[in-house]
């Protein structure tokens, strides 16, 4: 969705960390992006490259850690894998599902100098 704003959010997190932990160059960034977070990875990469230009993270490598989606099926009372937010339960076919995992959008780790 709004990958440009998210990429700016990533840069903000990086710059805050740079001040706190005193580093001046970011070489690689690991982002944890959930399968159900609505983030388009290709668009994120594109926006990230544009946003970090002339910043502390200029030219940094972006690594995406994709986390799988999961949901709670109210019919089966169990956690099942989900590939879409409106997915159906693979066991009973019900749509009475609440997403429980895979909505992450986190900056996990940086390689810095």
């Amino acid at each position, binding site marked *: 969705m709004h990958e440009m*704003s998210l990429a*700016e959010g990533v840069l903000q*997190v990086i710059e805050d960390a740079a001040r706190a932990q005193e580093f001046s160059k970011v070489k690689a960034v690991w982002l944890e992006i959930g399968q159900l977070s609505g983030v388009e990875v290709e668009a994120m990469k594109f*926006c990230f490259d*544009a946003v970090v230009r002339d910043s*502390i993270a200029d030219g940094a490598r972006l690594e995406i850690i994709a986390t799988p989606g999961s949901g709670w099926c109210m019919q089966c009372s169990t956690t099942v894998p989900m590939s879409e*937010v409106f997915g159906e339960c693979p066991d009973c076919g019900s749509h009475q*599902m609440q*997403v429980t995992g895979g909505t992450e959008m986190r900056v996990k780790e*940086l390689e810095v100098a």
Partner: protein
Amino acid sequence: MCTTCGCGAGEVKIDGNDPHHEHEHVHADGTRHSHGHGHEGEQSHDHGHEGEHSHDHGHRYAPVHSHAAAHSHAPGVSQKRMVQIEQDILAKNNAYAAQNRERLAARGIFTLNLVSSPGSGKTTLLCKTIEMLKGKSSVAVIEGDQQTSQDAERIRATGAPAIQINTGKGCHLDAHMVGHAMEKLSLPEDSLLMVENVGNLVCPAAFDLGEAHKVVILSVTEGEDKPIKYPDMFRAATLMLLNKCDLLPYLSFKVDAAIEFARRVNPGIEVIQLSATTGQGMDEWLNWIEVGARDTVTRKLATVDALQRRVAEPEAKLGAR
């Protein structure tokens, strides 16, 4: 700027003025972040960007190249230094939202974030709602649009105070902008605050503004499959208003299918069918607002009571000495 939705930084205006510390927000790190502003207003923006476009691709498809470049900038550094961050990308927005929510709760203000695609009739619905609430509740409105203050003017014509936020290139309101608008509105205690978000069924879903609920408006002139086409928004909402229901006889829109699609994405979503033009269903909507507003005031009073008791106890002990 964004390839997906065209959103970008800067250019935010609240009632035509720059929010006074916008720079603190955008320029997170002084000159380093100045690119956001550097792009704006410069004629070369588009050209410059296009020119750099190919460079961008070069980086993406030849990561080894960019790695080598990084090394050449810091030839003395060979060992890797890793920094654990573990921070949500939206953490900053969420912190502002929590602040807004706290301020609103402390004053008993029931806040709704109205979201929909453009043209669903949000502003007309708001005007009608304000008119019907006249004499019962005080309503203030924060209007979000990329450009113009036409919507705020329409709201002000009903007599309700309204503030227009122009997001410029931005595709959604964020909690920081809304916090500023709240300050300007000087909201009365125990009132209602309606935030009309930028017409967009995608981006506003992820940005918490500090509201009590997101209310998604789907008009029956749209497709009934919108809830599964834009699931994030329907999942984020507590209530779906099916608007323009007076037009149903002329359309092939299937109400049951729309509700079923919405519940598939969000099993708990409430639904009200209405028409802002004819007034059908408006009572049910106003009742929903009233219940929420009453709860908000009750919670505020409970908090105030609890605080007073907490203060009273040590005071009584001191008095007894």
